[in-house]
C-alpha cells in the first residue's frame, strides 16, 4: 500500500471510531475500546518485527508492566492519572532498556527465546510478589479518576491516547530513524558498514516498542479496573505476534487489521465453542502457508487482479 492509501485508511478509520459511541450500543463501545488497545499493542510490536526485523516472543511483558504499574500508582500511591500513566510507561521503558540490552546481542531465534525467557521471569515475579501485584488473583479494583468512570468518557480517552500513539508511530516509521530500522532489517552488515551502530539502534527500537506496549497495558488495566498475570504469559506474547503476522508486517496498517480481526474472531467464536485456540491455530497455519504477507498482501493481490481485468 502506498503512503497515501494508508493515510486515507487511517483517516477513515478515525472517522468511524468517532462515530462509534453515537451508535447507541454500549457493548459495541466497550468492544471497540478493547480492539483499539490490542491494535495499539500490535502496532508497537511491529516496530520490532516489521521495521527492525526482530521477532520478540516476550512483548507482553511490557504490556503487563505498564498495566500493573498504572494500577499500583493509581490505587496504592493514589497519584493523579497524568503522573501515574507516564510513570508506568517510563518504568516499562527502563525495564525494556535493561532486558533489551541483553537480548539484542543475540540473533533471530536466540533473540526470540531470550525475550520469551525474560517475559516469563516477569510473569513469575507477578505471580509471586503478592503484596504488590496481587499474585494469582490479579490486581483487582483500580481507583479510576472520576472523569473516566463512564464508559463513554473512557472511550474518548482511549481513542485520544491510541490516536496520538498511532500518529507518533507513523511519524517514526517515515522518519530517518525509521529508514535506518528498515535498512537493518534488510541487511544488517551493510547498515553496519555505513556507520550505523546496529545493536544500539536495535535497542532503541526495542525500548520504543516497549514504550507503546506499556501505553496499551496502562489503558487495558484501567479498562478492566484491574490487571491479571495472564497478561504477561507467553501466550499473550504469541497472540500479539500472530496479530502482526495476520495483518502483514510490511505495511503500517497491517497490524491494526490483524489485531482487530483476531480479537473480533476470538470474541465471536467464544460464544459458540470453548475451542478458540484450535481456531487460532488454524488461522496461524493459513497465514504461514498461503498469506506470508498477511491480510494486506491478500488485499494487494486482489486489487491487482481486479485492476488487470
Amino acid at each position: 500500500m502506498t503512503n497515501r492509501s494508508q493515510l486515507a485508511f487511517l483517516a477513515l478509520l478515525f472517522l468511524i471510531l468517532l462515530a462509534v459511541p453515537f451508535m447507541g450500543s454500549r457493548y459495541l463501545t466497550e468492544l471497540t475500546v478493547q480492539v483499539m488497545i490490542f491494535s495499539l499493542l500490535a502496532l508497537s510490536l511491529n516496530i520490532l518485527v516489521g521495521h527492525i526485523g526482530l521477532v520478540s516472543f516476550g512483548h507482553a511483558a511490557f504490556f503487563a508492566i505498564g498495566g500493573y504499574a498504572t494500577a499500583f500508582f493509581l490505587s496504592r500511591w493514589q497519584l493523579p492519572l497524568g503522573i501515574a500513566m507516564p510513570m508506568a510507561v517510563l518504568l516499562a521503558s527502563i525495564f525494556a532498556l535493561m532486558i533489551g540490552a541483553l537480548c539484542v546481542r543475540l540473533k533471530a531465534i536466540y533473540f526470540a527465546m531470550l525475550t520469551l525467557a525474560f517475559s516469563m521471569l516477569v510473569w513469575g515475579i507477578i505471580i509471586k510478589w503478592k503484596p504488590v501485584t496481587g499474585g494469582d488473583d490479579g490486581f483487582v479494583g483500580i481507583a479510576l479518576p472520576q472523569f473516566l468512570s463512564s464508559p463513554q468518557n473512557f472511550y474518548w480517552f482511549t481513542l485520544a491516547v491510541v490516536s496520538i500513539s498511532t500518529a507518533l508511530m507513523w511519524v517514526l516509521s517515515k522518519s530517518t530513524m525509521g529508514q535506518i530500522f528498515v535498512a537493518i532489517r534488510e541487511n544488517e552488515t551493510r547498515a553496519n558498514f555505513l556507520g550505523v551502530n546496529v545493536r544500539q539502534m536495535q535497542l532503541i527500537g526495542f525500548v520504543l516498542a516497549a514504550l507503546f506496549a506499556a501505553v496499551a497495558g496502562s489503558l487495558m488495566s484501567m479498562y478492566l479496573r484491574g490487571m491479571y498475570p495472564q497478561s504477561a504469559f507467553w501466550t499473550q506474547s504469541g497472540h500479539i505476534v500472530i496479530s502482526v503476522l495476520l495483518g502483514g508486517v510490511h505495511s503500517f496498517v497491517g497490524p491494526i487489521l490483524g489485531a482487530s480481526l483476531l480479537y473480533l474472531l476470538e470474541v465471536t467464536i467464544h460464544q459458540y465453542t470453548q475451542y478458540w485456540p484450535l481456531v487460532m491455530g488454524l488461522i496461524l497455519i493459513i497465514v504461514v502457508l498461503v498469506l506470508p504477507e498477511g491480510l494486506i498482501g491478500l488485499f494487494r493481490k486482489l486489487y491487482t487482479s481486479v485492476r488487470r481485468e
Partner: protein
Amino acid sequence: MAFLEITDATKKFGGFLAINAVTFCVERGARHAIIGPNGAGKTTLFNLISGLILPTTGSITLEGKRLAKKKPHEIVQIGMARSFQKVNVFPRKTAFENVQVALIASRKLQYNPFRGAAELFRDEIMELLEQVKLGADSERRAGELAHGKQKQLELAVALAAEPKILLLDEPTAGMSIAETLSSIALIRDIVQERGITLLFTEHDMNVVFEIASTISVLHHGEIIATGLPQEIRVNDDVQRIYLGRE
C-alpha cells in the same frame, strides 16, 4: 607517517595462519591494489582493516588513529567505506533509498524519529546516482537491478559516506568484459575527481594494471612484494608464484 599503516598484522583461524605478519602502507591519494591467487587471504585482510574481524596481533592505523580494536561502524565514522565481494545492497529498497540510507547514516540522522525521510537529500542522491550512471534507475528496487548495476549502486552507497579511503573487494567480480571496462573507467574517474584513496583487490590483471598506482602481492597470507605496477610486472617471485611461470 603513512595514511593507512598495517603493521605486523596476523590472523589465525584455529591453527590456520590466514594472514601472517603483514606489513604495508597505503599513501594518501594512492590507488593501491592487493593481488594474489585464490585463498591468498585478500578478503581476510580487508575484513581485518575494516573491522569485521579482529586481528590476532598487530596494529592498523588510519591517519595515526588505531583501527584494530574498533567496531566497523566506528571505523566508517573515521572515514573508511567498503564494498563487498558479494553484492551487498538493501534489496527491497529502491536505488534512491539505498543511497539515502547511506546519507542518513553519515549525517547521524538515525537518532531522529521525527525528521521525515521522504524527499530528504533528493538532489544529492540524484547527483550520486547520476555519477555512477544509475540516474534512470533511481526508483527501481535494488534487488531487481542487474548485477553490474548493483555493483555501481554499491559504489554510490560507499561514496555517500564521503570516505577518505575506499576499500573495494573485487569491484568487477561477475561482470562481463564490457561492464568491467566501463566500471574501471568509472571508479578511476570518481576516486581521482574526489581525491579518495583507493585500496582494492582484483583478480583481473588488466583491471589492476589499468587502475593501480601501487600493487602489493599477497601469497599464503604474506605480502611478498609491494611496488609500482611496472616493478611488479617484472618481479621474479611474483611471476613464479602468481602468474604461474616457472
